[in-house]
């Protein structure tokens, strides 16, 4: 009687175009699809994850082919054809499935490697599965392990440390200049999409105020309203420099909007408080010579891209380390899993009993030197038979076809009762 296979079926942003992913995404929450999976008799334990970049089902079963067919029909039937699904779905079993789950959890499989969101999504998905009690001994242990693997990856590598998008890079630089962004004011020149994105990140860091300057005031007012800020006209720009700290410029203007000569006199009025200019416009809005002034830092789109590239290469180095950690943990988990079968457990139990009786015998016989060989023999015999009698019912419990308790569960109980998984703690 073999152990169930762990199977992972899924689609993600790498294998599946957005057009199909949209149709497959489970927008209605987890309850319904989990209940549907529960009705399939081929599955033993199961769990489901759905984010905007992936849909994955993890389950244990004895007949992989049957289960695969049933699960795919259940989840995706009616949305896309079987052929379409077959083209983009990936399937991992046992060790590969474990590894894949760990990679996903530690964000090595994400679109933006190192982002921290996925762990939260995973935990959320697991919460539903455990509330429904659809995950059992193996999946519970596996998912908990995936959380701790992620934690290990985060503490031992710097994978989540670097900024890998332009807006993030701007925030990171801002922090290196100002320390805290909490009491800083941001001015957006031009109300384009890029400016909006950068402002969103800065507001996420808790900046104090957002000021929007735009050629058409209406657009400025609309954008300012979004960030609870205020709108100004382009003519007031230079005056405003006195009051803001971070300037994001992204207008479509063909000429420079601010020159070195505009900015220099402002510094005196600002009492040299630093200014951070971010110029994401092409062609540039801001005079490159502004960077030459003391306490002023000007970054254009190329500079920011360089920061992003540098962080990417740093992150790729860290990803190699992280992958090594995942491999290590996958190996550990797989060997735990292998032990979760009846035969190795029985062997381990017998060895344990054998070791204990040998050790105790040696101790006792060492003190009794007046015994005849015959007497010694019978004492030895007694010790072995006590040990094997003690094991009789545990072994029977393992082997029998118990109806109310699942076999994996029973193996788990026996292993923890006899402390087979961490013998070093037995002393």
């Amino acid at each position: 009687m073999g152990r169930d296979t762990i199977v992972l079926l899924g689609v993600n942003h790498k294998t599946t175009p957005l057009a199909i992913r949209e149709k497959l995404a489970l927008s209605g929450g987890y309850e319904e699809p989990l209940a549907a999976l529960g009705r399939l008799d081929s599955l033993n334990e199961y769990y489901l994850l759905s984010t905007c970049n992936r849909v994955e089902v993890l389950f244990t079963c004895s007949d992989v082919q049957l289960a695969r067919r049933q699960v795919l029909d259940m989840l995706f039937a009616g949305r896309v054809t079987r052929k379409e699904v077959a083209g983009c779905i990936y399937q991992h079993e046992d060790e590969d499935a474990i590894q894949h789950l760990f990679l996903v959890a530690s964000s090595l499989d994400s679109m933006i490697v190192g982002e921290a969101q996925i762990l939260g999504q995973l935990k959320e998905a697991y919460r539903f599965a455990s509330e429904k009690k659809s995950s059992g001994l193996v999946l519970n242990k596996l998912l908990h392990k995936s959380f701790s693997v992620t934690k290990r990856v985060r503490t031992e590598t710097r994978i989540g440390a670097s900024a890998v998008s332009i807006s993030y890079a701007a925030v990171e630089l801002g922090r290196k200049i100002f320390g805290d962004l909490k009491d800083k004011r941001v001015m957006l020149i031009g109300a384009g999409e890029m400016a909006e994105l950068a402002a969103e990140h800065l507001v996420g860091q808790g900046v104090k105020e957002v000021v929007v300057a735009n050629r058409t005031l209406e657009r400025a007012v609309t954008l300012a309203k979004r960030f609870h800020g205020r709108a100004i006209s382009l003519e007031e720009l230079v005056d405003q420099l006195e009051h803001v700290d971070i300037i994001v410029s992204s207008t479509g203007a063909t000429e420079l909007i601010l020159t070195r000569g505009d900015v220099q006199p402002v510094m005196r009025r600002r009492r040299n408080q630093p200014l951070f200019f971010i110029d994401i416009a092409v062609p540039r809005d801001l005079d490159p010579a502004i960077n030459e002034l003391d306490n002023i830092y000007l970054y254009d789109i190329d500079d920011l891209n360089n920061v992003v590239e540098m962080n990417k290469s740093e992150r790729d180095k860290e990803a190699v380390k992280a992958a090594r950690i995942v491999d290590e943990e996958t190996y550990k988990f797989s060997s735990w899993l292998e032990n979760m079968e009846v035969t190795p457990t029985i062997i381990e139990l017998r060895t344990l009993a054998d070791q204990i009786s040998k050790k105790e015998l040696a101790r006792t016989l060492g003190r009794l030197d007046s015994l005849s060989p015959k007497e010694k023999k019978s004492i030895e015999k007694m010790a072995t038979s006590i040990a094997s009698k003690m094991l009789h019912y545990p072994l029977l419990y393992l082997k029998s076809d118990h109806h109310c308790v699942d076999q994996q569960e029973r193996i788990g109980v026996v292993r923890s009762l006899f402390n087979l998984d961490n013998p070093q703690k037995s002393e």
Partner: protein
Amino acid sequence: MSYSYLLFQISFVGYLLAMAAYLVFFFSQKNNVRSIARKVFFAAAILHSANIVARLVEAGHTPITSVHETISFFSWSISWCYLSFRWRYTVKNFGTFATVLVVILMIVSALAPHEILPLTPTQRSWLFPVHASLAMIADAFLALACIGGIMYLLQERELKQKRFGFFYSRLPSLDALDKLNQHCLSIGFPLMTLGMFTGYIWAKLIWGGRNWHWDPKIVWSMITWFLYAALMHQRFTMGWRGRRAAIMTIVAFMAVLLTLVFLLKGVGAHGA
């Protein structure tokens, strides 16, 4: 070997270990190494204090008379000024730079002869230890300001040139370093002024206003004071900050060092 000198050597070893740990942290960025470094440094600073007290008991006067004592007292002041700063603020990797300076001073101090010298008649005044220790503690804060200035220039260079190398991730934000500069100056400068003032009264007491000695030590300490006064003035009225303030802090500290050299020359000659 005297008891106090043994304490000196133990604290010296302690500082060396702390510096090694801080440097390992600086390169590897592993947080657990830093906490070890902090504990070792703290222990070394306490032992160093014990050394100074033991020497005071042994000599019967405040140990700021020989070259060995003066420099040891200087590095002790830096250690405790750093610790007092650390208690209020956190500046990433400041400890690494501070311990390097402390260790350099300890080496110089260890190389100087460490016999206890009898006090000269002029040093017998009660004002002498007050003047000397005030000046030393002031110099310690100014030394920390100088370290902050160096760190500022390193970080500012990478941010301005947009070439992010070794220091970018290891040094704190420019703002934190500028605050460090301001904090250390606004403690160091008043102490220095007080030190100068007590020195003036002391000189008046021993020389009685006659034979005013225009020795280089006095001239340089006045130049130093004016440099810092100018920096403080610019900082608080004109809002000088950042690179300019950092450069000025470093230059002014060079003047402090020069004054110390002249002072120690005098002490050394007296010792011989």
